[in-house]
């Protein structure tokens, strides 16, 4: 199940919560479609640089981290994302960057990084490699 909620207390950020991570990549792809639908239904909001940022969570998050993510990402431009490299449980950024990332990560299994990048190869290394491959600017927390 996906759940979308928006924080309104002066710090607007759209949060997608993924509860079942068995098929994470498919869920991410579904979220990308939801964001794109939103872009096409309310173009004014999403073409602007100050569009509310998107946070996708697929794990537990420490209290207060939402505020910190909002502060870090509020000035992000269309090609910037913030990745959690320690727990790999969330990604945040501009909706354009998020939809580019989440919309293609579904098929990541079809693409292998260059051999030199495969040691050590784990989920986060692959995600960062893929984010770079899409020409997104990656910030890490």
């Amino acid at each position, binding site marked *: 199940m996906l759940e979308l909620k928006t924080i309104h207390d002066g710090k607007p950020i759209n949060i997608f919560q993924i509860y079942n991570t068995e098929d994470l990549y498919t869920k991410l792809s579904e979220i990308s479609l939801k964001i794109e639908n939103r872009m096409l239904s309310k173009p004014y909001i999403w073409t602007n640089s100050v569009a509310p940022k998107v946070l996708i969570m697929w794990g537990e998050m420490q209290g207060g981290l939402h505020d910190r993510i909002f502060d870090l990402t509020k000035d992000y431009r269309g090609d910037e994302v913030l990745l959690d490299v320690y727990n790999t449980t969330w990604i945040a950024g501009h909706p354009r960057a998020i939809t580019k990332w989440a919309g293609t990560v579904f098929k990541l299994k079809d693409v292998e990084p260059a051999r030199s990048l495969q040691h050590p190869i784990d989920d986060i290394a692959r995600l960062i490699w893929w984010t770079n491959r*899409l020409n997104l600017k990656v910030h890490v927390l």
Partner: protein
Amino acid sequence: MKRHAVFLRGNLRTWNYIKNDIIKFFDVYHEQPDWYVCFWNSDTSTIAEIKNDFKNSNLKFLKFETDHNYQRFDSRILEGAHTRGPDKKIAEFLGIFSKVVYPYWRLAYLDQILSMAKRKYEIENNINYQSVVFARPDISYSTTSDLEDYVRCINELHSMEITNTKSSNLRMGKFSEGCKYDNYVSPDTLLVTGNIASDIFSTRFIDIDFTDGSLTRLMNWDVHQLISMIKTKYQLFELADTEPNYRVSLLLDIIRPDNLSMDEWNSMSKKSKYELCVSLGIDPYDYNLTIK
């Protein structure tokens, strides 16, 4: 068996004269692909007629899009540049260019619609298309390859590859105005893409550049260069080491009303074009000869 998709989109134009050839070609050479079709609303044909045209094919998505829906975006496409520009003059300058690249964004918009429909279908049915072809309804397609070779090449397409788009590095000044200034161009008539490349290319309508106010993207008025910029930015290049540097030999011929050549068509007055289209049952809107 690997599955393939065809995106057929744009203005209907001479569709009624060549539709059987188009459908037959891709049904045979792309092994009964799934068709995703989106046309600008026109009197040339109707939804029911198009459905009938595809009655023996795998039509997965069909939509007639209206100008009204698209125009919601048109004035805002450069919103980022307008609000972030250093002064009003630059904002006005960019506003003029936004109208010149109108055809590019209109096609990108249709591709965005088809891409979303395709990915929705992929998720719901847990499949990945091996390739996606971006085709137009006014072009006749053919190949010099034999069927077995062609199918093998399509099935070997890499997921991050766009093939059959010769990126010209030529001084094509008479053909493309933009080539005088930056001569790396790609055709807009046909693209054959791997599965991830198709998603990246087909979502260029909401690509990440706009809000950064990338001047090279926003000031460029050449459709062919804008397409090649997507390819270079994401490195969606031909990966085949075959000659003549194409995986597949896919030939095309733009069919104009009454089978006129490009020179003949371009030499006609707007009124003559209008009358010819009406006499052939083609909505003049398809050639931008009237405003709905």
